[in-house]
């Protein structure tokens, strides 16, 4: 017998938890994205060869960089919120406000990165 789960994966995805749920799911997607990106990057450098060169050209593509920057920046900023709330549990009373602050930090930073990446890509 495995663990019993009353909720299927599909039901879990349909759960409407609003703001906190959105950060939770983006934190997971971002984290998994970083794991895949860093692992493949290390393996490409380790084994090298034509596959390594091809993978490096994929990393340097602007569309790929937009995704990686979203994953890394969101995971880092949301992670800092989680660390602060978890290590100072009294602050949990302000968790909704913490999420608003988080977006206020993340959106301008990411917008700046998008601007720099696209400007570099378009100037070629």
């Amino acid at each position: 017998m495995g663990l019993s789960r009353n909720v299927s994966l599909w039901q879990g995805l349909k759960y409407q938890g609003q703001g906190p749920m959105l950060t939770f799911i983006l934190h997971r997607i971002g984290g998994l994205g970083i794991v895949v990106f860093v692992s493949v990057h290390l393996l490409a450098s380790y084994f090298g060869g034509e596959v390594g060169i091809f993978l490096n050209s994929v990393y340097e593509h602007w569309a790929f960089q937009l995704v990686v920057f979203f994953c890394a920046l969101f995971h880092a900023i949301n992670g800092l919120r989680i660390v602060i709330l978890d290590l100072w549990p009294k602050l949990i009373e302000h968790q909704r406000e913490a999420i608003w602050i988080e977006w206020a930090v993340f959106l301008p930073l990411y917008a700046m990165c998008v601007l720099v990446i696209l400007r570099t890509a378009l100037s070629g």
Partner: protein
Amino acid sequence: MKPRTVSFTQRGFDFETFMWFFTRVSALVMYALALTGLVGALIMGARTQMNLADLMRWVFTPNVTHVQNTNVPDLAPWTTSFWKLVASAFVFFATSHGLHGLLSVIEDYLTLPWLRRTLRILVLLLTLFMIFVGVYLIWTS
């Protein structure tokens, strides 16, 4: 609603509790290492010799291959043992933090005991392998 606190002895302390704590602490450590890389790069002349993207690459792992294609004239200060140690620490914390996170996601969705045990061992082996690959690349590049 006031948060309830349970004392340390009542809570129990096992591997996953330790990893819960380690995940949070390693996040703070990685912030500190990134800040070290940022300040160090600026001291070594990044302000005029690197663009934002190159600087961020260096900050995420201060490895010399990340500055080879920039306008940095002398790579010597960027290849010291200090930076190799910082980069190795980054690899260690990032890998153990990230792959334990992968394990958390896996165990949230998979319930079969034998599958969970197999994947747990696989993730552990992958963690050790990726730390080895990362540290090897840093000290040989």
